[in-house]
């Protein structure tokens, strides 16, 4: 697709089956979706597979997007569901948490925002899966506990407990 294309137009065209327009949608949103997948599953290779799954699923379900929320919001929620489904199935867990964890010991005194981000992302990979999921969805992506409960099947109170655990564990990890 050449030239500047408004995302809204691209989404509408993609809804009519225009794959080139969908490529534009992909290139706009892929970085954020990849970041979400990598943070939630803790492995870049798996995250890339999940990115593909998310956009294939999005293509299949584009007709259900009614424009009631921003497309990015709709896509993000769909991605969360895809990742949670994979985490539940456990089919892609081999080798997770390797690359980022290996770098964590080298980063101890973050001064810049970028260092802080890397340090926390490394600590995230050490969290239990449920605590990591709740921390990311609640603190980073702004989901309510009720929304997390709906997406994960855990009770809202359990979500609160997991968040408390995540905070506690992260502080310990970051203090080391």
């Amino acid at each position, binding site marked *: 697709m050449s030239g500047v294309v408004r995302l809204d137009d691209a989404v509408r065209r993609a809804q009519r*089956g225009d794959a080139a327009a969908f490529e534009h949608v992909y*290139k706009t949103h892929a970085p954020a979706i990849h*970041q979400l997948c990598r*943070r939630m599953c803790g492995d870049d290779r798996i995250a890339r597979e999940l990115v593909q799954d998310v956009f294939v699923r999005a293509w*299949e379900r584009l*007709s259900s997007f009614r424009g009631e929320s921003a497309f990015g919001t709709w896509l993000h929620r769909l991605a969360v569901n895809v990742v949670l489904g994979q985490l539940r199935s456990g089919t892609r867990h081999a080798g997770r948490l390797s690359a980022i964890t290996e770098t964590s010991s080298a980063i101890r005194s973050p001064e810049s925002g970028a260092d802080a981000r890397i*340090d926390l992302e490394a600590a995230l990979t050490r969290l239990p899966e449920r605590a990591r999921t709740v921390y990311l969805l609640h603190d980073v992506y702004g989901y309510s506990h009720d929304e997390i409960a709906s997406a994960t099947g855990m009770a809202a*109170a359990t979500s609160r*407990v997991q968040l408390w655990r995540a905070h506690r564990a992260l502080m310990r990890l970051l203090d080391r």
Partner: protein
Amino acid sequence: MTRTNRARLDRYTAELRRPVDGDPALDELWPAIRSRLDRGTAGETSVIPRPARRTPAVTVTAIVAAMAAAIVLAFTLAGVMNDRSPAPMVAVATNADSAAALRAIDDSVRAYEEETRILLDRLELARAVLPPQAAHAVDHDLAVVDSAIAELNAAIERHPSDPSLRRLLAASYRQKLDVLQRIANAG
């Protein structure tokens, strides 16, 4: 968790919320995605027919069953709950570290436990006349809440001086009662 540590974690978390930069390497994934989109289509065209939306029969069945269960449960519970006393108010701790606040929270938890126990006793009587699907839905919902409460109680045993856990426990019981009340009101 000290305030300093919490502030540090908050600062780090804020970093994670910042928009991510583009990653050119992700462009490499598009051909594989495009290939998956193309799969199953008759011709090589730029416009790919998407599968029509379909609503699986099992989903419709599940929705109907859930609605039926909710309605049946609402009518059943309306009878047993109309004469119940108002739910106790949760004490809000203004100073979370104070012993008085902890006692107030514990009192609230005990009041909710008692209220919940009474309701569950009545529900057990009503359960006998529920259709199997409705009974299963009730059992499932209660199991989810009970699991959260058990997890909280275990956490409180390990960290008895943490007031936030006790507040969460009180909130869990309040949620349980709220759900039961909403079901009754729906009738």
